[in-house]
């Protein structure tokens, strides 16, 4: 049993089209196959630890889709790792992905609950013992041992309702799930 989240009149405008999202739920209930999406990103090495990711097409709704334009994400490592520090490190990009995923979720949940947002800011930190990636100790994992997200949300709602926005956005977040739960990852060479 639970208590239903109060749905307020949709006077709030956070720029999220919740009606469309709810409509999509109805459509996918009828046609679950259309809900199967495949996202992709291609990556090309430049030099050293520098690489560029190019993102455009994805598959979903039973067909291929092109984006409005091609997006790029560059990556590198900082100088302390003997790199040139031309772009964010891959783990930082993961932290950014988590923050963006949760932030989009906060906006969508707030819209659905009729809560007007004024600002949403977050700081994400990930702790890493780099002896793991340097192969110095098999007991130390490569990845983050802990990730913390701290939101500052200014909205027309009680502190409890604001806390519920952050909680519900985690419940529905793709990246939060990817970081919290194991995934099948296969890497092959063509």
């Amino acid at each position: 049993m639970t208590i239903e989240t109060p749905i307020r009149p949709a006077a709030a405008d956070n720029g999220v089209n919740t009606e469309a999202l709810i409509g999509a739920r109805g459509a996918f209930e009828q046609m679950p196959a259309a809900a199967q999406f495949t996202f992709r990103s291609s990556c090309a090495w430049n030099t050293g630890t520098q690489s560029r990711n190019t993102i455009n097409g994805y598959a979903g709704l039973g067909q291929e889709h092109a984006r409005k334009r091609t997006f790029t994400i560059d990556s590198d490592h900082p100088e302390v790792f003997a790199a040139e520090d031309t772009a964010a490190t891959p783990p930082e990009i993961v932290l950014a992905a988590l923050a963006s995923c949760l932030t989009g979720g906060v906006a969508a949940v707030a819209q659905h609950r009729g809560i007007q947002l004024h600002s949403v800011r977050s700081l994400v930190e990930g702790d890493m013992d780099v002896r793991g990636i340097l192969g110095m100790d098999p007991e130390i994992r490569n990845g983050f041992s802990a990730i913390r997200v701290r939101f500052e949300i200014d909205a027309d709602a009680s502190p409890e309702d604001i806390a519920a926005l952050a909680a519900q956005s985690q419940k529905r977040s793709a990246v939060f799930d990817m970081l919290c739960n194991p995934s099948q990852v296969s890497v092959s060479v063509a």
Partner: protein
Amino acid sequence: MKSIHTLVIGAGQAGLAASRCLSERGIEHVVLERGEIANSWRHERWDSLRLLTPNWQSRLPGHAHGGPDPDGFMAMPEVVRFLEGYAALGRAPVEERTRVTRVRRIGGGYSVETDRGGWACRNLILATGACNAAKIPACAAALPSGIAQLTPLGYRNPAQLAPGGVLVVGASATGVQLAAEIRAAGHEVTLAAGAHVRVPRWYRGRDIQRWMDCTGLHDTPAAEVDDLARVRRLPSLQLAGDGRRRFLDLSALRAAGVEIAGRLAAIRDGQALFSGGLANDCALADLKMNRLLGTIDAWIGANEPGPLPPPERFAPTAVPERPRLVHDLAGGRFRTVIWATGFRPDFGWLDLPVFDAKGALRHEGGHVLPGLYVLGLPFLRRRNSALIDGVGADAAHVAAHILETRGRLAA
């Protein structure tokens, strides 16, 4: 083949309530029961289990507990006696030891095959319960050999467990009760907890069920719910009927020495992998509990039921700072896994096109097909539809509908 106007399958609280409501309306019927009256309560519950609802809340059409201890909780033999008494009181026409093997559509009604002959009926009420089988996640297949697997339907008491660690998967009423009992028997216990519903047993001088009753929360109709599919699959409240006015939440289990981990996400290479999202599942449970307490406080404020202790807010769930992400199941420390991961009804004998893509029975407020009804499923018509206390109203609705349909056909 025998012929009858209405058949009821199952002689638990749902089937007996249906029988009572049919009798009150003069509708000829028979109740088929695979075993004995209250069969699941007799044979498919663990030894120490007591109802999670207090005695006063065991209300069925024409029958109530009425014993000297309204705030007590019935043990299973008492539940069996209570339902036997109900059947006797209403002279329910129960045919015991009659197992239904197949239901088909014939003409304007249904053919019901059993291991003791066949029946034809115009109306059929499915009252076989919501908990016939335990749901077990697919990852169970990856458990290392040498680990015993149990479901709550097979668990009786800690004495049946091998010495050593026990992983209890699931933090609903069942999971928290089993974790507490097995820990108290001296086993090392890890509880894998995903989304869960935290509530205090006792609040502002009364049982939580009393507040849910008088605020009308239990009576919430399905039509007033935003996402019915979601509320139908909610885990049960973390409650125990042991008479102690305490929480049986993750904090209490931790204090009792149970290790709390996140949802069991996978079993890989002999290792159980737990979700790193435990803190959020706990935060959601705390928020929802406080919303429930707020609803109760608001009701008390508006209705002034008398002098009561002041509102109370409880400490957030004591989430471990670094919950375990991995347990080695192959190392010998763990000997048993208990899947407290929910139950499902079993309508395998229903040879009708009435199931959705996931195999669940499709129904609209208990109406499955013309003349075919179901009772006792979660949030069937109201929040308390799957409780002893809630099935009576649904049974009355079904009986009234059968009577009305008979009137229309006769006219």
